[in-house]
């Protein structure tokens, strides 16, 4: 298991290397002078010159053959743009925003808790809806309930998430005034976060009013973001449960005269959960990194919204750094999901 874990994580290195190469090339593919692209039209000549030096724009892109031939020193090969970029990101330097000059790595760290909290909210919705619905559909196979769950799940995966978000805002915020339409806290709420997870922080500080406010803000975006995983989990739960329920040990349990409730929830559910947990893990990674549309609609101050604003403003250092950060998180979460199977199912042998 440990050896497999090590190999799985070592396998991430070539992928992350490729990702950095791709992200680096992305910004270089934009026509024009990269320094001008990164600093915008109103940059001063001095700033442009400074950045050109910093980005090594006078040097070749990937490998500096010329310097190597002139000096014979193999270290000179790396005096090129991409190696310098790679060295900067390995030191945690993702550059600065063109417009606000804010440090990209620091801002990503500051915004991550908001995205994480939204992911947890969406996942809660997905589990609370998806798992019971799937179980119910499986034990009442071919009934009206089954048909309703499966139809609902199909509609759930077919709905554009941004449109669902708008409908939710229209019904629950604009029309009924039950819930706030955007943001994480009401305007004028004074609160100093600790971890950045508002639900946790408000409890730690004993501010129940802030807790209630944060929870009310979290509900609608969580419903929107959780709709697709809820549908996928329900479908998976149903088919997995049906498969387990047809197995011999379940028939034995029934033959022993155990109540159906015990058979389903004690004997079948545990084994039926395994493929569902896989899906949950993969969706966790997707939600954590793919909430751009939801965050934009609900004005949620997370990474996705920031990235979207940066794309609109052509703030390329943010786009570059944010994309790299998200891809890194995504592959790491997926690797962790992979490894967790072994802990959950002792039958799985890693080779």
């Amino acid at each position, binding site marked *: 298991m440990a050896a497999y874990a090590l190999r799985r994580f070592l396998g991430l290195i070539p992928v992350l290397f490729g990702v950095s190469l791709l992200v680096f090339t992305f910004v270089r593919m934009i026509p024009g002078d990269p320094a001008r692209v990164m600093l915008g039209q109103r940059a001063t000549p001095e700033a442009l010159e400074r950045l050109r030096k910093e980005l090594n724009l006078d040097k070749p892109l990937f490998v500096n053959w010329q310097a190597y031939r002139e000096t014979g020193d193999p270290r000179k090969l790396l005096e090129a743009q991409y190696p310098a970029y790679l060295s900067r990101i390995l030191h945690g330097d993702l550059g600065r925003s063109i417009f606000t000059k804010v440090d990209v790595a620091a801002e990503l760290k500051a915004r991550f808790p908001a995205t994480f909290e939204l992911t947890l909210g969406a996942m809660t919705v997905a589990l609370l809806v998806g798992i019971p619905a799937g179980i119910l559909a499986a034990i009442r196979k071919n009934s009206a309930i089954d048909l309703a769950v499966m139809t609902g799940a199909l509609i759930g995966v077919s709905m554009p998430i941004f449109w669902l978000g708008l409908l939710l805002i229209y019904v629950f915020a604009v029309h009924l005034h039950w819930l706030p339409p955007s943001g994480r806290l009401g305007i004028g709420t004074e609160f100093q976060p600790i971890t950045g997870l508002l639900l946790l922080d408000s409890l730690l500080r004993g501010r129940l009013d802030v807790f209630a406010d944060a929870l009310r803000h979290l509900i609608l975006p969580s419903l929107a973001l959780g709709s697709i995983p809820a549908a996928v989990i329900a479908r998976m739960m149903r088919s997995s449960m049906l498969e387990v329920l047809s197995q011999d040990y379940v028939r034995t349990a029934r033959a022993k005269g155990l109540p159906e409730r015990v058979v389903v929830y004690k004997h079948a559910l545990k084994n039926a959960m395994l493929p569902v947990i896989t899906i949950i893990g993969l969706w966790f990674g997707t939600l954590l990194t793919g909430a751009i549309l939801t965050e934009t609609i609900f004005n949620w101050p997370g990474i996705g919204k920031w990235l979207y604003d940066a794309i609109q403003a052509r703030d390329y250092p943010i786009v570059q750094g944010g994309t790299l950060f*998200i891809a890194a998180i995504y592959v790491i979460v997926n690797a962790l999901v992979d490894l967790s199977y072994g802990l959950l199912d002792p039958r799985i042998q890693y080779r």
Partner: protein
Amino acid sequence: MATLARTPTQQALRRFLRSSSGKAGLFIVGVFVLLALLAPLLAPYDPAKDRDLRARLQPPSIEHPMGTDELGRDILIRVWHGSRISLRVGVVAVGLALLAGTLLGLVAGFFGGWVDTLISWLIDILLAFPSILLAIAIVAVIGPGIENAMLAVGVVQIPVFARLTRSMVLSLKEQEFVTAARALGATNGRILFRHVLPNGLSPLIVQATLSIATAILDAAGLGFLGLGAQPPAPEWGVMIARGFQYFTTAPWISLFPGLAIMLAVLGFNLLGDGLRDALDPRTAKL
């Protein structure tokens, strides 16, 4: 053909006709395709010239069944013409991904070795990005617009087809009919395209249908973010975004394009499920 012995095609057709989701999907997709094809004949439309400022923001009525938008344009006719854009995006993007992905998968699976390592590495890199982020990043670089959005949405789907084809080739190339073809002197190209590919076509067809659904959703998302089709094009995502500004007072502007997206995506999802029932009975229905 004898009546008792059915060809595989007939069997598949029978299975498809028994699948209620397949029939429902075929119906929805069929209606969309028909409406999209007939739009220029039945209701010629020029989005750039269409405006009637006296009829702004009208709720649904007999004259305007889906209401009108902020420029007095009839939503129904725009949603109708939008089907042409969305279907085209879905089909072109998936066609592109199918072509590129299948070729990559065939080559990787068939030749193995360093070619496989290289292609698998490229696929892993593409898969390291959440799909909508990759599409957004591509459009951010090559610029917004409907053609670029098609390209972006297509590129995002390439790894899906590459992986599917690769694993299919890996399992098929060891089979006896391939060895037999090789013994008869068939070239690699002939083996790949005449023997291996046709035998692995079913899962690709199913995946392509489901991918059209995803592509339509992604392209609408790009349109909504202002990165796909540009106004005044009657693209559904763009219409929803425009309606967003008016939607406390005129929710119908965003409502109907969204319903259209949902129905179209639902249609392709159902059709894909039905095709899986028909073509790939082993993995269908548990």
